């Protein structure tokens, strides 16, 4: 009892910087309000309420992010800005703000995709009633009654909150909780497709099983690192790593297991196996959202964890990341070659992009290392994430509008001759693919350029040669689709391009515009990434 008394004597209420954390609070607040709306609003008004609430929430959080970002305090001689909030649990610094902004803008776009109703004839593209068995009377009834799961909006908001917390967490425990907060809603969202429900449920099961499995590794890694450093806080871990207190085995094992959890989330080989199956099976709007936003958030967290906490052990983990990066690029680019489903192909393409991003990550150039005229790895990776995010969301949005009687026509053979059927959609998709392939004047080129040059400057030239080689291989499957759309004749009925409502149109237009704009005038965004500065610790 005496120990409790001692504790009590020392207790003082923790300080909580509400203004700094306002973007997070807004998003979580909106998510909880969304649940209440589900509970109390009449069915007919839920869709509108939820959609408007989600949009307003994201916009509000974005405004808050901008305000917070403008008021960051400068630290470390101007190379970093921001402060540690919530008793050391959350770091609100330049990179956090940049990632928050990116995630929020991409989420805003994804909300619009979620809210699309015209393509399915007036209902959301999510299951009318997830509990109704596929192919039964109950499902048909749900469909004729026009039932919708408007819960997708609060679920998405929870995921967005997790995605914002994940890269901003400044200790291992917060990071773990954030990881789960972002993952759990996604597991559910994956299983909610209106059509091809068996595939969708299978995707959810696989994602969940493997996600839970990998988070087991993650938490055990946390335990080991905690055992080494005696603290969960990144700054304390960093100090322990630099001091090399002994017990290296614990540290190295911990880093390895944490890496497993992280690499799983970013979809790096050999932890990538879930990606194609889940991307294919999940509702396309969800795929777009998670392909773009999860990758941004996970890379942000990966960068913070390895640069801040394990920066002192860089020479220990670099070889491992080299191997993973090379493997990821090979698997992503080569396997994409033989895909016949457009969503699956884009999934492998996203794996390959993860490999390219890891190339930049491993370059590990920091402000202190770089000379005149060079950019840091952090800036390069952040910029690449922005370019990748917009192009990906728009590409999946295009997938939702190419349809046949059974819903989305995702088999590639159905895409042949699309250039004749709908020159605009085919043209937009071609530009997006060229962007992913990294053709100059598209965002993909500037992104790849930034990432590869930093890696090269960091001395990782074998990695860069591999990366350039496999971006050439990757160009093949992008071009294969373009050839299919323009130089092949339609098979059978041919594809039809459904006219979406203004919502999906906005998504496609924004992604398309960003792909071109970031290729032609990348300056402002690169400046923004540069202004984000280093992580604080």
């Amino acid at each position, binding site marked *: 009892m005496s120990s409790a008394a001692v504790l009590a004597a020392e207790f003082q209420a923790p300080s909580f910087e509400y203004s700094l954390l306002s973007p997070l609070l807004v998003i979580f607040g909106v998510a909880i309000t969304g649940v209440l709306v589900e509970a109390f609003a009449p069915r007919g008004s839920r869709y509108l309420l939820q959609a408007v609430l989600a949009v307003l929430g994201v916009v509000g959080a974005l405004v808050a992010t901008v305000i917070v970002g403008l008021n960051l305090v400068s630290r470390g001689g101007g190379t970093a800005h921001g402060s540690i909030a919530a008793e050391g649990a959350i770091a609100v610094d330049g990179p956090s703000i940049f990632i928050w902004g990116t995630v929020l803008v991409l989420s805003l776009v994804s909300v619009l995709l979620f809210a699309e109703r015209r393509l399915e004839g007036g209902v959301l593209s999510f299951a009318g009633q*997830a*509990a109704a*068995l*596929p192919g039964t009377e109950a499902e048909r009834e749900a469909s004729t009654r026009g039932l919708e799961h408007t819960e997708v909006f609060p679920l998405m908001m929870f995921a967005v909150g997790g995605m914002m917390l994940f890269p901003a967490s400044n200790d*291992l*425990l917060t990071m*773990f*909780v954030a990881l*789960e907060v972002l993952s*759990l809603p996604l*597991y*559910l969202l994956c*299983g909610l497709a209106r059509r091809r*429900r*068996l*595939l969708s*449920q*299978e*995707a*959810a*099961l*696989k994602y*969940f*099983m493997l996600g*839970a*499995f990998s*988070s*087991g*590794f993650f*938490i*055990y890694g*946390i*335990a*080991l690192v*905690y*055992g080494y450093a*005696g*603290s*969960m806080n990144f700054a304390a871990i960093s100090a322990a790593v630099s001091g090399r207190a002994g017990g290296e085995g614990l540290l190295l094992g911990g880093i390895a297991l944490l890496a497993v959890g992280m690499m799983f989330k970013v979809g790096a080989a050999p932890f990538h196996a879930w990606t*194609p*199956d889940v991307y*294919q*099976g999940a509702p396309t709007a969800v795929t777009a959202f998670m392909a773009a936003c999860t990758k941004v958030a996970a890379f942000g967290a990966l960068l913070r964890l390895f640069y801040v906490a394990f920066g002192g052990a860089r020479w220990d983990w670099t070889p491992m990341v080299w191997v993973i990066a090379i493997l990821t690029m090979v698997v992503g680019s080569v396997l994409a070659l033989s895909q016949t489903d457009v969503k699956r192909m884009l999934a492998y393409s996203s794996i390959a992009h993860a490999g390219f991003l890891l190339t930049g990550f491993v370059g590990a150039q920091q402000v202190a290392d770089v000379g005149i005229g060079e950019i840091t790895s952090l800036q390069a990776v952040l910029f690449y994430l922005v370019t990748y995010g917009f192009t990906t969301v728009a590409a999946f949005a295009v997938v939702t509008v190419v349809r046949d009687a059974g819903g989305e026509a995702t088999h590639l053979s159905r895409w042949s001759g699309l250039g004749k059927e709908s020159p605009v959609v085919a043209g937009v998709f071609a530009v997006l693919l060229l962007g992913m392939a990294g053709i100059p004047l598209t965002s993909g080129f500037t992104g790849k350029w930034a990432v590869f040059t930093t890696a090269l400057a960091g001395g990782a030239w074998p990695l860069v040669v591999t990366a350039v080689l496999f971006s050439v291989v990757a160009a093949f499957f992008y071009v294969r689709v373009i050839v299919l759309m323009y130089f092949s004749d339609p098979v059978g009925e041919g594809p039809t391009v459904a006219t979406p409502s203004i919502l999906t149109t906005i998504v496609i237009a924004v992604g398309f515009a960003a792909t071109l704009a970031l290729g032609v005038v990348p300056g402002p965004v690169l400046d923004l990434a540069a202004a984000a500065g280093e992580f604080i610790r």
Partner: protein
Amino acid sequence: MSETPFIVLSAILFTIGCVGVLTRRNAIVVFMCVELMLNASNLALITFARVHGNLDGQVAAFFVMVVAAAEVVVGLAIIMTIFRTRRSASVDDASLLKY
């Protein structure tokens, strides 16, 4: 008292969990094995908390339990849905998505 036996025990539990995930077919059992992995981590966390003489590890164990519970809710929902659809809880039956 040395912490080594506890860490070894937690490693053994973790391994059992891993092996269980790989060998069992029933989704529920697979999931229980994942929970075993989480609990093995809890044991390690608490042991280290004692070694270092601070509370971080114990607090973390609480959070892991909470997260595990939340995972159970989501997991059960998903497993139940797929079970009702397929009349089978075997994870091997769900293999339409491949290549």
